């Protein structure tokens, strides 16, 4: 790939990114503007001790009495300057809240992402290598049930089994209750992570597994595998030489494209386990009318998804020789 082409690619992506994020910001702002939730009421809560004048003052401090276009303009400009406004429920800058919560979500999401990728991939290869066998039928049926299982119910189910019945693992939060921050041991953190990670992993397996299975079956029916069999290659060497090489790249790409579902799944898992991450914060911000925080999270989630898609594109560009050499794919 020439340098010129690389620049053109980067330029296109950057342009696309800014256009997309700007559109996301416009839509988010418009949706929040349309909502019947009054930010001042959401801020002061149900207390009646705050009079109309004070409400006016709060509205003025936040610039809520200005017309929507002007407010959008200032919000948009502030974001470009790195000021995302203040969260109402945490009383701190939005960026600070998001940064802190995202860090704890990242641990959960990364663990589940890697585990579901590995498990899904190998189960998919096993099922695809022996189409219609008992193993294949079981794995496929399990995947189809998993697709239809809401992740929060899966979490509830695991809590019932492992926390309530077997008393093995804690049912929620990321640290034990009543223990000081500095006294929390690594083992404590780990045991609190197991169930959320397991839930998120299970809800992510089905997609990658069924995809890998289809691909594997397709490869086994190809002419080059037929030829390999005719040459007398064993199943094992076919698996190593043909199946892995061809299935791995699309599987990894798909895993990067699933950032959106991963983020969505984390919202439910964190809610069920009261895990203090970005997903839990999203629900709190939505339920308590914390518009600046909710809008900030939306933009960050769009950046997160874009990063996944971009990585998938780059992977193809770097690894797939057909694209690297500049030819057309397919």
């Amino acid at each position, binding site marked *: 790939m020439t340098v010129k082409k690389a620049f053109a690619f980067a330029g296109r992506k950057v342009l696309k990114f800014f256009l997309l994020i700007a559109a996301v910001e416009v839509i988010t702002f418009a949706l929040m503007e349309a909502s019947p939730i009054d930010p001042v009421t959401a801020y002061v809560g149900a207390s009646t001790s705050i009079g109309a004048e004070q409400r006016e003052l709060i509205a003025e401090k936040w610039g809520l009495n200005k017309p929507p276009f002007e407010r959008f303009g200032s919000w948009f400009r502030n974001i470009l300057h790195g000021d995302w406004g203040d969260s109402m429920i945490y009383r701190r800058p939005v960026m600070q809240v998001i940064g802190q919560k995202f860090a704890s979500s990242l641990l959960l999401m990364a663990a589940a992402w890697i585990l579901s990728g590995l498990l899904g991939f190998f189960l998919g290869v096993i099922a695809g290598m022996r189409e219609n066998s008992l193993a294949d039928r079981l794995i496929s049926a399990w995947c189809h049930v998993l697709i239809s299982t809401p992740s929060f*119910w899966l979490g*509830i189910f695991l809590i019932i089994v492992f926390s*309530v019945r077997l008393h093995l693992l804690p049912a929620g939060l990321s640290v034990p209750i009543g223990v000081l921050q500095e006294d929390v041991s690594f083992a404590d953190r780990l045991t609190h992570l197991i169930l959320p990670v397991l839930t998120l992993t299970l809800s992510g397996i089905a997609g990658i597994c069924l995809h890998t299975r289809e691909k594997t079956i397709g490869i086994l029916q190809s002419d080059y595998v037929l030829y390999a069999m005719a040459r007398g290659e064993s199943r094992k060497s076919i698996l190593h030489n043909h199946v892995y090489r061809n299935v791995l790249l699309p599987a990894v790409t798909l895993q990067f494209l699933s950032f959106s579902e991963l983020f969505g799944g984390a919202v439910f898992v964190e*809610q069920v386990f009261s895990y203090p991450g970005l997903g839990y914060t999203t629900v709190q911000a*939505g339920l308590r009318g914390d518009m600046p925080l909710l809008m900030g999270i939306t933009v960050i989630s769009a950046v997160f*998804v874009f990063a996944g898609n971009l990585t998938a594109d780059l992977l193809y560009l770097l690894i797939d020789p057909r694209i690297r050499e500049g030819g057309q794919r397919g």
Partner: protein
Amino acid sequence: MSSELKTEKDFKKAPGRLRPVRGTREQAILHISLFLLILAGIMIAGSRIPSGSIYVDLEQISQPPSLKHLFGTDWVGRDMLTRTMKGLSLSIWVGIICSLASTLTAALFGILAPTLGGRADALVSWLVDLTLSVPHTILIILISIACGGGFRGIVAGVAATHWTSLTRVIRAEVLRINTSEYVRASRQFGKSRRYIARNHLLPHVIPQMVVGTVLVFPHAILHEASITFLGFGLPPHEPAIGVILSESMKYLTSGQWWLAFFPGLCLIMVSVMVSALGRSLERILNPATAYKK
């Protein structure tokens, strides 16, 4: 011809049992009618249950599943089976409305984009990218908040996020047909656009739409239950599955597993059934797979 051979072999395998061999088509029709029957049963049962039958019975508080209350009772003695059935029929309604709405959107965009071409086409593709650029959950929450929650919010949210994949499918299909030999020939013969649309385009697109609608349905009911569970969807007084499950969270640690277990399991079963129905429908509507054994 090969199917005849198969038939003979199958009869040989099971001598004495003159069971007609079921091919994909027969199997699919059997599945579809069975599932439709069950779904209709749930909907009729749900709509027939008068709201008075979900009554508070303080003598039967928090009963585990028994013959009298198959799914147990909740903390004010309401029968969970009745609540679940009510919830399921509500879910199915929401699912039907959401999938129809997203199919209509997909059909409109998917047919208009390649027909108008140029900028309109690029715009539709960009809209699809834009919708997919934010996680569905977040977008549904935002739309639901914008609509002030409730039934309207959830339908708008789910419909607005689920039109994308079908739009892509229909757009690709229309593009393929529009550039195909027989449509070009038809055009050369001076057939009108309407004729081409009715005789060449729709016969290909309508089956895709039917399958697409059915396959969107499970996603729709799962998203509805999920968003309601978070507290953004249907209001707490509705007998929705999401409401039941979010209430059950409070009673989990006291060991009342049946409050969450059965309603969730029923929701999963409905969703599995509908996606199986969709896949069978896909097989028999596609000529390449319809007659495969």
